[in-house]
């Protein structure tokens, strides 16, 4: 539904994105992650047909965003960063304008506008001027205008920014409910949001895509081993030696557990569950087993690993020049 091929955008001498390629299948929700200035908004501006790319192509719903811009625009809803709206218009009047310009027929316009206002929880403010609304409301009016016209593709640049926790939960479930019918690409700084809402993840850093796939794929790619945290009552040195002696264990690392005692993070290949072996080991040695659980690696750790990894590479590369 969204095909991006070798997209590059330069602002004068500054390269915002470089050779970005990815695909988003129909009905999927993809999260676009990256530190500030990584090129998330630039990519979204190109996809939304607002800005041309310097090189490369992008297709939305099968239409090229540059040469078939009008056709592509008929099929997309866009929420730019910071939701720029007309402050001097009331909410309902503004949404009516958007519905009309998107070609929603006169007979259904009123109902469609009322529907998106309900879904985005802004009905109670429909007669207020947009300029007088709080950031959270403005953001949701922005989302409402993107949903109008029932576009196949939604491009949302930081949709939950400026919302309070309850509103964030509501908007996330709204976006989640769009899956299947709509193809969504959204950018965010909030990593757990991606885990909760998105089917796939694209991590962009310094204008390049550094990782993409489902959250699970990324975790397995970046952290190839399964981890188990174990806490037993026994002498640290002995435990360490015994754990390392297990054939399935690739690595053991002592860590400080929450209550201050020493725990061990045991790494093993993903297809091998070592928990049973650990229990047997503890029992045979007579160490009381206090805690044993799998440590799931979160997207956050993946993100930090990927982005920091890029940075150190960069630093060593530039370090050689001095």
């Amino acid at each position, binding site marked *: 539904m969204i095909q991006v091929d070798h997209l590059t*955008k330069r*602002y004068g001498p500054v390269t915002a994105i470089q050779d970005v390629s990815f695909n988003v299948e129909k009905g999927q929700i993809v999260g676009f992650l990256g530190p500030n200035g990584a090129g998330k908004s630039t990519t979204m*501006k190109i996809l*939304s*047909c*607002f*800005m*041309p790319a310097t090189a490369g192509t992008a297709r939305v719903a099968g239409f090229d965003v*540059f040469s078939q*811009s*009008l056709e592509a*625009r*008929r099929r*997309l809803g*866009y929420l*730019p960063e*910071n939701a*720029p*709206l*007309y*402050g*001097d*218009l009331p909410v309902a*009047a503004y949404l009516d*304008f*958007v519905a*009309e*310009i*998107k*070609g929603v027929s006169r007979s259904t316009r009123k109902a469609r506008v009322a529907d998106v206002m309900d879904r985005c929880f802004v009905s109670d403010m429909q007669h207020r001027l947009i300029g007088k609304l709080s950031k959270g409301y403005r953001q949701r009016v922005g989302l409402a*205008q993107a949903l109008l016209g029932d576009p196949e593709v939604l491009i949302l640049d930081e949709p939950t920014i400026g919302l309070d926790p309850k509103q964030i939960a509501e908007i996330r479930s709204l976006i989640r409910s769009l899956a299947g019918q709509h193809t969504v690409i959204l950018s965010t700084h909030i990593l757990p949001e991606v885990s909760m809402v998105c089917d796939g993840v694209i991590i962009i850093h310094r204008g390049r895509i550094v990782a993409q796939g489902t959250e699970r794929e990324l975790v397995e790619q970046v952290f190839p081993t399964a981890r188990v945290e174990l806490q037993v009552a026994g002498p640290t040195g002995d435990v360490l030696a015994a754990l390392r002696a297990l054939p399935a264990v690739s690595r053991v690392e002592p860590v400080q557990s929450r209550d201050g005692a020493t725990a061990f993070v045991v790494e093993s290949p993903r297809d091998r569950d070592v928990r049973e072996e650990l229990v047997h080991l503890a029992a045979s040695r007579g160490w009381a087993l206090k805690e044993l659980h799998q440590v799931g690696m979160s997207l956050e750790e993946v993100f930090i690993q990927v982005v920091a990894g890029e940075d150190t590479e960069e630093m060593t590369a530039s370090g050689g020049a001095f």
Partner: protein
Amino acid sequence: MRWLPVFKKEMRLYFGSPVAYVVFTFFLLISGWFFSQIFLIYSDISMRSFMQPQFGQNLNVTDTVMRPLFTNMAVVLLFFIPMLTMRLFAEEKRSGTMELLLTYPVRDGEVLAGKFLASMALFAILLVLTLLYPGLIAYFTRVEWGPMLTGYLGLLLIGGTFLAVGLFISSLTENQIVAGFGTFGVLLAFWVIGWGADSAGGTLRTVLQYLSVTDHMDTFTRGIIDTKDLVYYASAIVLALFLTLRSLESKRWRG
């Protein structure tokens, strides 16, 4: 036909904010002042010609009241119209709403048409309000409605030219002050350029006279529709709108 939503939105913004009311109020105040002064002079002259008939042989409302009034209104418009057009594109760019507008399924030409027609409609409403003056004259004496209509046609054309130029300059910047002053400067230049014609000779004289934006209104106020002047205003409007369209389109490939 997607210009209509843009047109309606602009009209809502004009009347939803104080812009329309402020411009109407002050334009009517100033043109009303001109009208009352001119009309007082006219009544003074007609009073005197009552005593000395040879004094007012060629006295008529069209020449003595409406012509100076139309000319004065055109000059006042030169000050007012930049304020109507300066926000049309500049504000959308500054606030970022342009980004959304350009991603809606609407052609640049339709956006432009909506905005130009909205400013024309606002201006037309302003002109309708000034019909009060000929109405007052008609109450006291006979009005020649033909020259009156052509005079208004002239005002509509010169106003349209001002609006189109203002729209173009607004599309070049995201700063409203720059858009407003830029428009004012350009319009002023095209007004005073005619003054140079008196001292210039030959071809230059003709060229300067032809370029002067206010000179072309003179024939309209006398009740004449001259194709030369129609062509002048029409081509100025078309040129300015064409340049605006180019400026909008350049955004699409230049970024």
